[in-house]
């Protein structure tokens, strides 16, 4: 089967990337600056791909993704620092609790449409942040000390799992149901799709991986504070998806890679970085609102001719 061949090609590519980077890190060619940047890149890709499922595939405009990142970060930090359980338990728990948060936020808000949904998710993310701000157990505004457990291996394995799960979900009848909601919710409903179920499902899966990213994020720094998870963080994630192309997984991956590099380079100049971000965003919306790749994937450009042949075969 052609599709499974593509799958093994992806796995091969992942193994190669992983091994090369791991080799460079363990031999000391990549210092902590580069390895941290690569870990951050992996975390950003996980965030971008998880939000891509909600916005790009299902068409539900959520601008509160940082809320789930915060839930994952704090839950995992509680597990490793307060309960002193292994990091892997923290990652899994972060994902599960973030999923629950996703259900709590998604079930009431996902019946709203368009910009009302956007504002409601923004509001929920702020509420989540303010809740953490008011819990002394996690340090309130001062934040919480977290040990540095995130390694390239953890980050990369989580990244690969995220991409496989979301790709597999998208390329199934369930993913198709989500796309049909994005394309025309009324018609989707009329075709027998339980639109509420699929919107909430996509939202919950997205929240799960944002939670996982939160666990990696928390254990990649030495401290987490509520101020790290404000509206600007949600906006950072949003721009990956919008810039890459609403509906394109590879587009959001590419955008996450590019923008992580830009923002690492401009680390000492946060205003310049935000000016560039916002200008890019405005210009993209004005001149190419579908983003870099639109709804297409990078692989579509490579196999255009093949798919033509595929048509002929199917018809015969």
């Amino acid at each position, binding site marked *: 089967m052609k599709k499974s061949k593509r799958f093994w090609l992806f796995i091969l590519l992942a193994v190669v990337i992983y091994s090369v980077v791991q080799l460079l890190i363990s031999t000391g060619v990549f210092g902590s600056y580069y390895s941290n940047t690569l870990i951050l890149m992996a975390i950003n890709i996980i965030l971008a791909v998880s939000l891509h499922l909600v916005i790009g595939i299902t068409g539900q*405009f959520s601008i509160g993704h940082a809320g789930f990142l915060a839930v994952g970060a704090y839950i995992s930090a509680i597990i490793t620092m307060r309960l002193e359980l292994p990091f892997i338990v923290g990652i899994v728990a972060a994902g599960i609790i973030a999923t629950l948060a996703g259900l709590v936020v998604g079930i009431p808000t996902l019946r*709203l449409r368009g910009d009302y949904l*956007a504002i409601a998710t923004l509001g929920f993310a702020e509420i989540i942040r303010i809740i953490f701000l008011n819990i002394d157990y996690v340090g309130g505004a001062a934040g919480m000390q977290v040990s540095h457990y995130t390694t390239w291996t953890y980050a990369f394995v989580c990244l690969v799992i995220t991409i496989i799960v979301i790709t597999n979900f998208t390329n199934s009848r369930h993913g198709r149901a989500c796309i049909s909601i994005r394309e025309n919710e009324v018609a989707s409903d009329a075709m027998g799709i339980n639109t509420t179920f699929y919107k909430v499902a996509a939202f919950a899966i997205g929240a799960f991986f944002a939670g996982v990213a939160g666990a990696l994020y928390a254990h990649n720094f030495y401290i987490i504070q509520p101020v790290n998870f404000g*509206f600007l963080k949600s906006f950072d994630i949003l721009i990956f998806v919008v810039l890459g192309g609403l509906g394109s997984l590879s587009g959001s991956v590419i955008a996450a890679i590019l923008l992580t590099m830009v923002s690492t380079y401009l680390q000492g100049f946060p205003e310049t970085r935000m000016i560039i971000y916002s200008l890019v*965003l405005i210009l993209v919306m004005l001149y190419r*609102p579908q983003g870099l790749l639109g709804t297409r994937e990078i692989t579509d450009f490579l196999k255009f001719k093949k798919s033509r042949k595929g048509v002929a075969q199917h018809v015969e």
Partner: protein
Amino acid sequence: MEWIQQLVNGISLGSIYALIALGYTMVYGIIKLINFAHGDVFMVGSFVGFYSIVGLGLDFFTALVLAMIFCAIFGVLIERIAYKRLRNATRIAALITAIGVSLLIENGFIFTWGPQPKAFPDIIANGSFEILGAKISIKSILILSISITLMVILQFIVHKTKIGKAMRAVSHDNEAARLMGINVDNTISATFAIGSALAGAAGVIFGLYYTKIDPLMGIIPGIKAFVAAVLGGIGIIPGAMVGGLVLGVIETFVNASGFSLWRDAAAFVILILILIFRPNGIFGKNTREKV
């Protein structure tokens, strides 16, 4: 009579929210856009007021008028440069652009003038008087009277003037208004001008009341004013006024009851409750999508 005093504080804060909310609601009513940059127009107004008083040595009212004029022009520029091309774009594209414009103004401002907060000059006498045992400051009364005056003027413009009639017509049906010979582009610009001028005024009186202003001061009041607009029923002018006042009073009481850290959450809880249970707001009518 602690609570009367809190009520007055709440109304003062609420009237600032109401002034900002009016701009949101008018713009949303006419082009269905949540103008995220509106909070930043408020910030710019505050700084124009600051520099007019400190730099040019103007008195408070001249500074207020100058800030309003400056913001009106600024608002129209934003609309013409960024939003005008988006008339036929998706709502989401428009929303993302608005977020982008907001961030551009904030960070461009910091980049040019630095992130430091400024102390707004104290040019109104700090007196107060007592009513029923509550200490009411002259500033509160001043803020309230400016807000009420501006809202009355706004009502007059919307209901009694030609441009107001055009605004109502365009917000009702853009295409029909165009066919009736109304210059839709100019009407939309006028809406931005009026809304932005009100936000500019809000910025100046905010500076007067809270004395500290900074380049990111527009974000939170901006979002809260949007909540106020939704609370009153977005697109409805009296709704924005009432929504702003209600929100200001609720926040002040949450704050006064010893939950100061939860103050910001109150607005968002209200927002979500409203969106879920009465998405068209207090004054809104039910509408449904045509199938």
